[in-house]
């Protein structure tokens, strides 16, 4: 029992010791420094009067309640810079950059930083920004834009010169200072670059144009060579094609050619045969036809000549005969004609005598007949003259009766002439009817009666004092009879 208690006490004591140790033992992380204050300490490498202990990278025993332990981070910090500056030439710029810094790893730096930032570790970037902004303004104010752009070493050197000692005081080291961009509201940098850009652009265009020219030349040369090669190839192809065609044609013609040659041989032989045949036949004809024909011709000719001679002799004899016969006929005809003429003459004389006798007889008869007719005509004329004379006498004695008779004879013509006055009338309006019509006709016929009156009057005047130079126009037949009356 006692052993158990003792063991328990021992165990509890061990546990308590371990807990106490855990409370007293502090370990520094790799990225932090322990700053222990509260008692005198001996720290390597540091002089007197520091008053606190710095532990990095290891553990240390700390008396709780007696000593205070604080941690200082050794991590990187960064601060963004955005500073409006004016350069040496007076050009406003906005410089943007970043500063990466940390607490220095040596005990001096840690001590400096611990004294300044232990409670304000969060505000460290802000402080650094203030420091760097001020320094950057002064640095940029001492530089030109060209320097800043071209001579970065100068910028960093000046930055180091300005900031290094200050950062030493703060126990900080600058791991990196980078200028991200330099904003240039006035366009100075752009204008600065413009001539170079233009020159570069010009060079680029020139180079481009030159390259294009060379490329085009090369292309054209290549095209030309391609065309040349194509031409050569086509020429060669055409040549080969021609050879092929020729060979093919030759091959195609070889059969017909040999056939033709063979046929030609045959034809030659046949011709030869035909010639021989013809020659043989000619010889045969010479023998069979020509010789007999010649003989026949000779015979015929001889016969014809003989016949001709005979015919000539016969014709000559016949001509002689005809001549003699013609002479005899002439003599005979002359004699006959003479006899005929004498007969005709005699016959004519007789006929003339007969004709004269006949004519004389007829003339006597005609004369007698004419005389008789003349006598009868004379007698008739005398009788008519007597009649006229008697009528004229009657007229002189009783004109009224003659005229009345003439009127009675010619009355139908007079009425027709009177009615002719109405022939041309298309429409006639009579106001007093049938009586008017008869009156109208009576008037028209009265005109004929008036003519009768006039004629009577004329006759009366002629009976009393006949005027020979004044013929009556109305009664020409009366006028015509007046000379007869006077005779």
């Amino acid at each position, binding site marked *: 029992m006692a052993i158990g208690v003792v063991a328990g006490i021992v165990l509890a004591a061990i546990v308590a010791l371990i807990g106490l140790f855990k409370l007293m033992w502090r370990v520094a992380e790799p990225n932090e420094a322990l700053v222990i204050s509260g008692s005198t300490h001996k720290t390597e490498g540091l002089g007197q009067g520091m008053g606190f202990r710095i532990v990095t990278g290891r553990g240390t025993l700390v008396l709780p309640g007696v000593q205070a332990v604080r941690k200082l981070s050794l991590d990187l910090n960064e601060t963004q810079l955005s500073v409006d500056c004016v350069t040496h030439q007076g050009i406003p710029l906005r410089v943007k950059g970043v500063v990466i810094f940390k607490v*220095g790893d*040596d005990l*001096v730096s840690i001590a400096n930083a611990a004294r300044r930032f232990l409670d304000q570790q969060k505000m460290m970037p802000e402080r650094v920004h203030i420091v760097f902004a001020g320094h950057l303004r002064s640095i940029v104010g001492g530089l030109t834009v060209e320097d800043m752009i071209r001579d970065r*070493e100068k910028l960093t*050197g000046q930055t180091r010169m300005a900031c*290094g*000692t200050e*950062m*030493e005081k703060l126990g900080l*080291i600058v791991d990196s200072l980078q200028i991200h961009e330099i904003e240039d509201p006035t366009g100075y940098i752009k204008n600065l670059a413009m001539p170079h850009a233009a020159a570069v652009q010009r060079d680029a265009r020139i180079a481009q144009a030159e390259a294009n020219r060379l490329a085009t030349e090369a292309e054209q040369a290549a095209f030309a060579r391609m065309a040349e090669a194509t031409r050569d190839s086509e020429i060669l192809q055409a040549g080969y094609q021609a050879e092929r065609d020729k060979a093919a044609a030759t091959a195609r013609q070889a059969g017909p050619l040999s056939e033709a040659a063979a046929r030609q041989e045959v034809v030659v032989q046949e011709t030869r045969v035909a010639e021989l045949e013809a020659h043989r036949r000619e010889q045969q004809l010479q023998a069979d036809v020509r010789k007999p024909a010649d003989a026949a011709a000779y015979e015929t000719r001889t016969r014809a000549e003989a016949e001709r001679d005979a015919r000539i002799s016969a014709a000559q004899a016949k001509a002689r005969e005809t001549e003699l016969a013609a002479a005899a006929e002439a003599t005979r005809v002359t004699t006959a004609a003479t006899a005929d003429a004498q007969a005709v003459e005699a016959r004519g004389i007789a006929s003339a005598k007969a004709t004269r006798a006949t004519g004389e007889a007829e003339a006597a008869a005609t004369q007698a007949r004419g005389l008789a007719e003349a006598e009868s005509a004379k007698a008739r004329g005398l009788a008519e003259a007597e009649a006229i004379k008697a009528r004229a006498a009657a007229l002189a004695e009783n004109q009224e009766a003659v005229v009345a008779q003439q009127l009675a004879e010619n009355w139908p013509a007079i009425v027709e002439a009177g009615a002719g006055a109405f022939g041309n009338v298309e429409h006639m309006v009579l106001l007093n009817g049938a009586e008017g019509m008869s009156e109208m006709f009576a008037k028209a016929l009265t005109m004929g009666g008036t003519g009768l009156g006039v004629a009577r009057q004329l006759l009366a005047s002629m009976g009393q004092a006949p005027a020979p130079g004044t013929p009556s126009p109305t009664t020409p037949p009366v006028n015509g009879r007046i000379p007869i009356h006077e005779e």
Partner: protein
Amino acid sequence: MVGMTGRVTGTVGPGLVGEVIVRIRGGAEHFLAHPVHGTGRIPVGTVVTVVEYLPPRTVYVMAAYDN
């Protein structure tokens, strides 16, 4: 610290604040550097020897090799 060699990362010269990087404390830290001798620039990349150390971060350096 004195006697260590480092490399110039910012030109060191009279009138300039240069920068050297030195292997120290298991890492590499950079220090503000001034030339020991008043004349002559030490260009970037030159190996230098730390002649004097002024805490916290300033060193005086000279070229490690004469040429």
